[in-house]
Each structure stands twice: as structure tokens, then as C-alpha cells.
């Protein structure tokens, strides 16, 4: 599916932040903003919901902890009980290190895999980018356009809010 975008190019993140507020206030829907680095407060300005990744991370961590405790208690306590140094079979203090490490292991890997999955980031041969300068020093605001969009007005709105250029680009989304 081919989509058409109007791209407002900004040179500074503070200008961009004001522009986002004004463009949204003017009732224009922002498709996406591309920036070379994370900008403080941009999620609020764009109305991006708070990520639920921390909740997922907590859940993964609990899974890791449960798995580690089950593994150690089952293996050393029930499946093949061994007396080691006169300690009880289920020596919980001795199980703390492995339980901690597996909690961290599950938290990190679970969360990172989830992050790549929900962001649809995976190795690919070529990456279509709306404006290659957005990974260097430009801040790009993409607004989806269709037949009913008044391009002149949109361009004027972006320029009035500090866009140094306004371009049009087509992109095939797969």
C-alpha cells in the first residue's frame, strides 16, 4: 500500500516541540515524528501512551524467579536429594544467587525481545526511511495526506511553526 506524506523538516528540537503542539492544536493528525535522538517530553506532546514494557518486564522477572526456585527445589530437594556439607536438601539461602541471576536474565531478555517485537524491529535487507537526514541532524514530522488535504494550508502551517523545508514523499508500506 502506497501512502503519501507531507514532511516538515525542523532543525532544532525545541522548535519541533512547539510545532507539534501547534500542529495538533490546529487539528492536523501527525502520522509520526522521526528524530535523531530521544527528546524529553515528546511522548506527552504527541500523546504517545506510556509504554507497558515495565509491567511486562516485571512479569518476566517473576517468571524467572519462579522458574529458578522450582528448578532448584525440584532438582536438589525431590528428584535427586543429596547431602552437601550437611545442609538441608532445600537450602534456600544457597539458592538465592541463582534465583537472582535467573530473575535478571528473564527480565532483560523477555523485555528486550518484546521491545523488538512490538516495535517491529528485525534485521532486514533495506530500510525505507522517509528522510535520511532524520538519523543525522534533522527532525522530521510526517503527516499523511490524501485527496482532501489542502497542501498549501498544511505547508503554510508547518512553515509558520518553524519548519525549514516542507517536502512531499510517497512510501510503499509493507
Amino acid at each position, binding site marked *: 500500500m502506497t501512502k503519501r506524506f507531507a514532511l516538515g523538516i525542523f532543525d*532544532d528540537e*525545541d522548535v519541533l516541540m512547539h510545532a507539534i503542539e501547534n500542529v495538533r492544536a490546529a487539528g492536523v493528525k501527525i502520522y509520526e515524528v522521526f528524530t535523531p535522538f*530521544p527528546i524529553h517530553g*515528546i511522548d506527552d506532546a504527541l500523546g504517545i501512551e506510556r509504554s507497558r514494557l515495565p509491567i511486562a518486564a516485571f512479569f518476566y522477572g517473576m517468571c524467572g524467579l519462579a522458574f529458578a526456585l522450582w528448578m532448584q527445589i525440584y532438582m536438589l530437594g525431590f528428584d535427586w536429594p543429596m547431602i552437601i556439607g550437611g545442609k538441608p536438601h532445600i537450602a534456600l539461602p544457597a539458592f538465592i544467587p541463582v534465583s537472582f541471576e535467573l530473575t535478571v536474565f528473564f527480565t532483560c531478555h523477555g523485555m528486550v525481545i518484546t*521491545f523488538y517485537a512490538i516495535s517491529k524491529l528485525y534485521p532486514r535487507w533495506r530500510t525505507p526511511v522517509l528522510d535520511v537526514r532524520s538519523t543525522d541532524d534533522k527532525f522530521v514530522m510526517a503527516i499523511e495526506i490524501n485527496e482532501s488535504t489542502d497542501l498549501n494550508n498544511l505547508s503554510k502551517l508547518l512553515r509558520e511553526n518553524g519548519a525549514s523545508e516542507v517536502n512531499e514523499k510517497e512510501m510503499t508500506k509493507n
Partner: protein
Amino acid sequence: MQHVSPVREPLVTGGKSYHDVTQDVCRQVEAAPNVRWMAALSVALFFLGVFLYSVYRTLWYGIGEWGLNKTVGWAWDITNFVWWVGIGHAGTLISAVLLLFRQKWRSSINRAAEAMTIFAVICAAMFPVLHMGRPWLAYWVFPLQNTFGSLWVNFNSPLLWDVFAISTYFTVSLVFWYTGLVPDFATIRDRAKGPIAKVAYSLLSMGWTGSAKHWSRYETVSLILAGVSTPLVLSVHTIVSMDFATSVVPGWHTTIFPPYFVAGAIFSGFAMVLTLMLITRVVFKLEDYITMEHIALMNKIMMITGSIVGVAYITEFFIAWYSQVEFEQYAFINRATGPYWWAYWSMMTCNVITPQLVWIRKVRYSIPLTFVLSIIVNIGMWFERFVIIVTSLHRDYLPSSWVMFSPTIIDIGIYVGTMGLFFTLFLLFAKFFPVVNMAEVKTVLKYTVDNGPTYTGHDPHHDLIHKPTTHGVPANAPVNYNKHD
């Protein structure tokens, strides 16, 4: 964006714009390899060869190739293991602990420090695996039933805790490092000219476009990774120290080991970061990103942890005396005055006395002195591990079994060889990956903006600080720096 402090030193000097950051960091990746890099790589590859030869001897003829004997059952292998793992700690500390503490100066050094962590842990892992003698059976350390029945690994053993700690530490550091690299790979991809570079960096960057939503999640992920890596890094060296501390060998059986080892790890790690950064900044012309201020700050951390280590040495002595256990007392007197006195006093000189020079401002801000100091600390920390291990083992309860340990050429070859492995990996990293985290440096760039004459710099290096500059900001932009702070 950020509040501009009137008293703090700028984090990036030279009045860089966002584009300058990209240019300066990508220059090295895009240019053809230079002669100095090739020469350095050749030396590193030579030592890698030494490593491979020593490993071949060890595996083909057995652990008898090493200088180990009946009493000293592990010496250079565990010394080198603990030393390398310790070096690795500074990288995680810079990327995780300093992120949690909102220390923005970490941004220009964290990438290289994390790479150092990963390569150091790889080098460290070589030693326990080789010490197994039959590394192809290394999977026995994982909780798998053995071939004879349903016997499991021993979860009460600190050596097994180590397996879990090191593998978690390695994989988590790797993921943390890689996730941080993805946006920078995207930058290189979008600048790449050649078809191979385009495809390679496209694969590496996983289709990163820098959309606001991704950045928002990316920041969440970084923060949580930092949050869990911080206790992780402390746990790893704590567990390494328990390999010794849970035994009853005089000289090892001490509760001070976990914090003392962690401090020592940070100490040697920062020394290695300094060594590498001092070279990297000159070779890659990154003086504006890794400033004298960075070097001074790292020096300070090195001095503080060095002092903690010094206190730990004295505490150990005190506790040995106070415990009234004669074996314990003898172990410590033997360390200082016995046949390995030279190792003990090298350790004391390198780790306790020399770092105190950092109190002097001139030393902190001097490149040659810092470089020498960082090397001395690395040597001292190697001796610390050696002293703890060998002096405790070579004489324990039974005087009839007292022996001296001396390394064989293979012992030395493996140790020197891991340096080759480390530098080979680091040089390849420095050539093909961005050494400085571009995205993060760009976020702190506006610190260099000096809005007025309030800043009172005392350092003559910063010739730019008195000029009112607005780098990266168009003159007519509605700037309000405090707004989003």
C-alpha cells in the same frame, strides 16, 4: 530542553552541531583503515596466535602444561579470570549506574566502555573453560542430567553460581550494548555509500527509523536494563568472591570479600577504561567528546575505589589479628613477609599508594600521568588477585605440603594471548562500530551552549566558554531551555 548550568563544565567542547557529531564519529567507520590501525591489529593478531597456540598445547597435552601443582590447584587461570571479569565491571557501571544517577557525562564514553565489558568477559570466560581440561564437556555445568542417571548440578556451590552469574552478565551486557548501538547503526546506514555497507548496516540496525514512539520505548528499555544491571554487576563480582570466601582456606575465608572485590573490580575497570579512552580519543580525534573533564572524573572514581580497596587490605589484616586464629594470622604475615612478599608489596604500592596521587589536580588533568597511573593500577590489581590466590594456597594447614608456584610459558602465553584476543576484538569494534554513542551525545549537546557570562571557567582548555554561542540552534528559534526539563 535541558537547563544550562552556570557552574558545570561543558560535556562536549568545540561548539559542535548535531551534524558535526555524526561526522566526527562516522569518519572512522567510513574511512579506509589507516596504517596505525593495521599495525595495531597485526600486533593484536600476533598475540591472538600466541593464545591459540597455548590453548592448543593445553588441550592436546592437558592441564599439566600449566604450572599448577598439588597445593596450588589454581593460580594464573583464576587470577586472570577474576582480573578480566573485574575489568569488565566498569563498562556496566558507566552504562547502568551512571545512567540511574543521571550522570550525563557518561554518554560519550559508555559505548566503548560497554564494548570493553563484553570483550573482557569473553577473555575471562576462557579461563574456567580451559581449566576444565575438556572444554567440549563444558555443557556439564548447566542443569542437565548427567549421562549416568538423574544426577543434577550442585546449586549449593559458588562455582555453579558463577556459571549463572557470568552467563547472565554476559548476555545482558551484550543485549544492552547492542540495543544502544541500533540507532547509531541506522545513522551509518543512512549515510552509507557502498552497497555492502548499506546492506550490512541495514541488517545491524534492524530497520530503525527513529520514530518518536520507538525512542520512547527505547528509553524505557534502557532505564529498566540499567535498573536490573546495577544489582547484577554487584552480584557478579560478589559471587566471584564467594568462590573463595565460602571455603575454609586461611586468607580466603572472609566476609569482607564481596564488597572488597566489587570495589576492586570498579577500580581496575576504570583504569582500563582510562587506558583505552586516552588512546581512542587521540587516534580517532575525539578530544572534543572525551574531554579532560571526563578523564578527571574517571580518575576520581578510580581514586575513590582505590581507597576502598586500601581500607579493605588493612581491614583484612586487622581481622586476621583480631580473630585470634593462628592460621589466619600466619596467612597474612606470610603474605607480607613470606616468599611472595614482592607480589604483596607491588600490590600495595600500585593499588594503595599511587592512586592517591589523583588528589593532586595536576595529575588528574595530565594525560601522560593518567595513562601511566592507569597501567600501574591494572598491574596492581592483577597482583592483588595473584596474592589472594597463590599466597593463600601455597602454604595452608599442612607444612609438609608447602610449595612454591611458578608459571610455565603456556600459563604466560594464555594470559598474554587473551590480551591479543581483547585488543583484536576492540580494534575491530573501533573500526566498524561507532565508538561514541552519537544519539546520546546529541541529547547532551546543548550543555555546550553558554547563555551568558555566568560561567566562570578556570580551565584554559575551554577557549569557547566565554563566547555566547548557540550551537545547533537557529538564531530565530523560540528557545526555552527550561521548558522540558
